């Protein structure tokens, strides 16, 4: 049994195909005015990496401040601005668009056998809106920042703070439309542009999970937009919807805000789960166990996701009867998430597992997401929530889901499809090392925060009692390791663009349609419309294809 399934073409004769979507046209304008989904995906990849670096640097500053109990590195109000900007950048400019706008954009048409997304110009418009929102966020940061927290909680955001709430709100409003357009595009494409024979239950699970996330983007984001518009109107002309002295209710804002922002965490995690399905299947050489259940669990997460938002507000003065209802509904979301984890585990059972880099990241995802998800159940239980909410427990919980889950999945996906996107392989050993370093650094950073939270250290403060220092030093030290873990891929992936080995069409021997064409693909994706005559993840079909090739070559 070999320890790897990687099969690269003979490096002495292999060449990157002369004509592909990267070389087809040259010049900056050919990129800025492109309507090719693959080029737009690369534009997104570059801009998302840029904003991730900014958000990461802000995280580094936060951890550095928390190294000591006093607020000595920066003043308390600067600290408030730093963690707010960290949240805004990471959520709206990195996590929400991360997998859908890069990998989803690149892969969905390839996976369903289409030449492009259904609305290519809308796709480009969505990138420009993203950039406009991003520039506004940068402007906000330079012109003094905002200190409400990424949640813009009223009446703080409407009545008290004197920072750039309006420009940040506008930035998120604009970036929100970028996300709506991406979602709309995916929904129309998946409904209308599947290749002949590509039935719903032959779609790769990556497509299913992006479809579910797209529904959330289209239905949820407008509510956030309205909530932000109302905050702006309240601040500027005092319309009074959130002001009790005028008959309004400050909690109404949180209802509207979390109605989007809770589903938004599923917008962030669902596409990542799609990546994990693909990776686990490819590196255990098996069809995903319980394909239909995994597909429907994505949709179930999307639907249930709309009915649980009040668990963010348990200590805010909401009715205790509705707390009961929302607490119960929150438990329901754990079911489809668990279905996924169990099915991936069963996919591994008796599979021919190999440990390439994407698989290492996927294992990281499964462990860390499970911890993040289960601590979510603690927080969804209204009793324990009253003790744990607004402490570092909650910070650790959502970083386990978002960083340990989503970022691991994103990196798994980037590594998995890097040979398809660029035509070249990254160095295997150092990338495996990066995956392990990320995992270790992550646990060092965020596990102590669970303990800090149960001990009662509140979130969002620049100073803390001295007895919490040891765990905070652990966390900050872990963050430096984590930083190295993220720096490595940026370095060696850039290196591989020029010096990486030629990957060939299908280095992982995976079954998706995207692996059956040249890498990097042609601008038109497929020379002729593919006909799908087998199920997804059918490795026997792949074997038969290889036999045919050998027979015809001989």
């Amino acid at each position, binding site marked *: 049994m070999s320890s790897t399934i990687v099969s690269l073409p003979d490096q002495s004769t292999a060449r990157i195909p002369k004509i592909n979507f990267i070389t087809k046209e040259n010049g900056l304008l050919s990129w800025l005015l492109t309507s090719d989904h693959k080029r737009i995906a690369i534009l997104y990849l570059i801009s998302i990496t840029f904003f991730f670096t900014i958000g990461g640097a802000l995280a580094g500053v936060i951890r550095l401040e928390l190294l000591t109990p006093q607020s000595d590195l920066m003043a308390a109000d600067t600290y408030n601005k730093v963690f707010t900007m960290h949240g805004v950048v990471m959520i709206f400019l990195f996590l929400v668009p991360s997998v859908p706008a890069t990998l989803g954009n690149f892969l969905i048409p390839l996976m369903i056998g*289409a030449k492009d997304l259904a609305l290519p110009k809308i796709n480009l418009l969505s990138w420009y809106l993203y950039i406009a929102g991003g520039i506004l966020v940068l402007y906000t940061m330079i012109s003094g920042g905002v200190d409400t927290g990424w949640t813009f909680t009223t009446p703080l955001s409407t009545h008290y703070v004197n920072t750039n709430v309006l420009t940040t709100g506008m930035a998120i409003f604009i970036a929100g439309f970028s996300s709506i357009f991406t979602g709309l595009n995916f929904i129309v494409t998946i409904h*209308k542009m599947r290749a002949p024979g590509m039935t719903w239950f032959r779609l790769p699970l990556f497509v299913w999970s992006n479809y579910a996330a797209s529904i959330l983007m289209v239905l949820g984001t407008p509510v956030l937009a309205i909530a932000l518009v109302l905050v702006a109107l309240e601040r500027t002309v005092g319309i009074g919807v959130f002001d009790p002295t005028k008959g309004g209710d400050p909690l109404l804002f949180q209802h509207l805000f979390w109605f989007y922002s809770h589903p938004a965490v599923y917008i962030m995690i669902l596409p990542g789960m799609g990546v994990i399905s693909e990776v686990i299947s490819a590196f255990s050489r098996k069809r995903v166990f319980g394909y239909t259940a995994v597909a429907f669990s994505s949709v179930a997460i999307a639907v249930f996701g709309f009915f649980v*938002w009040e668990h963010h507000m348990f200590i805010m003065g*909401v009715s205790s009867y*509705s707390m009961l209802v929302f607490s119960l509904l929150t438990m329901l979301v754990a079911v489809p998430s668990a279905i996924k984890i169990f099915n991936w585990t069963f996919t591994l059972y008796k599979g021919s597992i190999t440990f390439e880099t994407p698989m290492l990241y996927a294992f990281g995802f499964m462990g860390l997401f499970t911890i993040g998800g289960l601590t979510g159940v603690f927080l969804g239980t209204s009793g324990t929530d009253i003790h744990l909410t607004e402490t570092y427990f909650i910070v650790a919980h959502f970083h386990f889901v978002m960083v340990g889950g989503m970022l691991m999945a994103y990196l798994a996906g980037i590594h998995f499809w890097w040979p398809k996107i660029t035509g070249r392989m990254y160095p295997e050993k150092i990338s495996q090392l990066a995956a392990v370093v990320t995992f270790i650094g992550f646990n060092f950073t965020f596990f102590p925060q669970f303990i800090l939270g149960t001990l009662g250290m509140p979130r969002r403060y620049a100073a803390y009692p001295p007895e919490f220092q040891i765990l905070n030093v652990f966390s900050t030290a872990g963050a430096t390791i984590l930083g190295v873990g993220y720096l490595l891929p940026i370095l060696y992936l850039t290196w591989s663009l020029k010096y990486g080995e030629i990957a060939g069409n299908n280095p992982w021997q995976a079954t998706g349609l995207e692996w059956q064409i040249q890498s990097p693909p042609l601008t038109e994706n497929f020379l002729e*419309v593919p006909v799908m005559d087998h199920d997804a993840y059918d490795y026997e079909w792949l074997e038969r294809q290889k036999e045919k090739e050998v027979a015809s070559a001989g």
Partner: protein
Amino acid sequence: MSEHLDHEHEGGPKNDYEEHHIVSPAVYATIFAALLVATGLTVGASYIEMGVFNPIVAIGIAVIKATLVVLFFMHVKYSSKLTKLTVGAGLFTFLALIGMTLSDYISRAWGRW
């Protein structure tokens, strides 16, 4: 949804779009007139004091008007089931937002804390 599966991918506009229903000017004129009447009703209702029913009547008329616009001006009445489902999904989400939020408001311990 399976009826969409076998259609030709490159099949030109005939297959890509649902058949367009031509709506006669008479229908548009009738709907326009109905919208004008409803606007008049809203203005009229604002002069009558109905207590708690003031907003209910105003919003009720507005919902009827919006429904007419969506069904006729936006052609949803003549569209495929998929389009209707899409509109329905938006409506369902909106009802979830309002209904579940009200579950807090109607059962809160108003004035007892």
